[in-house]
């Protein structure tokens, strides 16, 4: 068993060393996994979702560091910033978005406003005791870091596309894939940075 596992990893690593010089897009062109034929499209969840994109492929197949860095830079360059140059919305709206789960599953309707699912993985407001631990605690996020324009932009960017900073992060690319709107992300930035937000209260 262990030998087989090692062999598998070795094969994948060899595939990647051959491909390291190829364009980023070639990762998405890797053979579809053996399970594609085992699925049916349902609701808004079409079969195209099974196909890994270049970022997913790089993480699924242990891409070398230079490929990972190039993809991070491409993800960063693709972030769309608000036209009005403002990053801070309303923290009260942000708290509601952070509380709301679901979105983009086959049981969700097309065009429905998605939740941020933030509390599924992060601690935010102290008052909410039902929080997950997949991501780090964000309680006191702004209190510890301030509220500078640079920090506002970074925070917006991180929510828009966490993969721009850590390619194989567990966090979804909420703005990049259109799961959250520009206004929703602004509200979440305010939830994290506004001194009046419960996130930053003692």
């Amino acid at each position, binding site marked *: 068993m262990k030998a087989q596992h090692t062999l598998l990893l070795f094969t994948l690593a060899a595939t990647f060393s051959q491909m390291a010089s190829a364009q980023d897009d070639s990762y998405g062109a890797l053979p579809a996994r053996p399970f594609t034929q085992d699925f049916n499209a349902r609701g808004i969840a079409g079969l195209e979702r099974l196909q890994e994109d270049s970022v997913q492929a790089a993480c699924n197949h242990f891409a070398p560091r230079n490929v990972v860095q190039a993809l991070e830079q491409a993800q960063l360059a693709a972030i769309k910033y608000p036209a009005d140059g403002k990053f801070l919305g309303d923290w009260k709206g942000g708290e509601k978005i952070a509380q709301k789960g679901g979105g983009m599953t086959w049981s969700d309707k097309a065009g429905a406003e998605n939740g941020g699912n933030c509390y*599924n993985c992060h601690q935010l407001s102290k008052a909410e005791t039902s929080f997950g631990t997949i991501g780090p605690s964000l309680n006191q996020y702004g209190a510890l870091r301030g509220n500078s324009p640079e920090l506002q932009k970074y925070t917006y960017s991180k929510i828009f596309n966490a993969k721009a900073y850590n390619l194989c992060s567990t966090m979804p690319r909420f703005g990049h894939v259109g799961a959250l709107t520009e206004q929703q992300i602004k509200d979440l930035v305010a939830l994290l940075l506004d001194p009046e937000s419960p996130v930053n209260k003692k």
Partner: protein
Amino acid sequence: MKKRLCEMSAICALLMSFGAAAQSTDAITKEFETYRELMEADNPAEIYEDAGAEMWKAKRGPKQASLEQCDLGLGPGVVKGAYVQMPRYFADAGKVMDAERRIVHCMVMLQGFSEADLAKQPFSKDGYTPDPSTLVTYVAGQSRGMKIDVSRKQSQVAKAYITGMEIFNYRAGPYDFSCASCHGEDGKRIRTQRLPNLSKRGEEAMLAIQGWPAYRMTGGYLLTLQWRLNDCFRQQRLPEPKYGSDTITALLTYLTANANGQVYKGPGIKR
């Protein structure tokens, strides 16, 4: 037989108490565990075990045959101990099969049921319990107290295990989720729900298998491992896996073999 036990007042009162947001995480979990211990002495899933035992013996389907000649891997008609040794390779089908898939196969081959019909509504819904769910609960109950023992000596099973491991770690979909996104590390939670590390052999991996098939108090119906994995793919934002597909069997092979040596306590109860 299929009455909605959720209507029992004690259960409903408890379910309502889960909804009380003021309660702390630990208090809710502790209360549920106490309740589960009480309930497991008289688990509603046992009703389905009994129904499944009758169904197993009954002459049913277009061929008016029973399932008593169904081979679950230990020879035709041997049910005891079969569940904890599946998934396994079945030469007559040329496939690795998990218990529920094998039961469907027997219903098709021995009784003449249509596989397509059985796949139309494969999971319990609105008071309806599919026959394979009832039957697999009976079969599972016949392995109560036995150790999980999925052999990977057969090359087909070994291959299914590797495929399952690959699928477990495969990120895809709009949220980039794999099974490992939530179940690949120790000590994690989603909201207040504990997330076992299913890539870790032994007790942690057993948490994927233990208690299934399950009587689920939310809604009050019987659900199987096929359903459990189906709903994981929904939450992963992927399309829907086909009922009894190689993908589900491969994942169940990975998860179950990771739990080898752990004692299976029989069909259970979930909140």
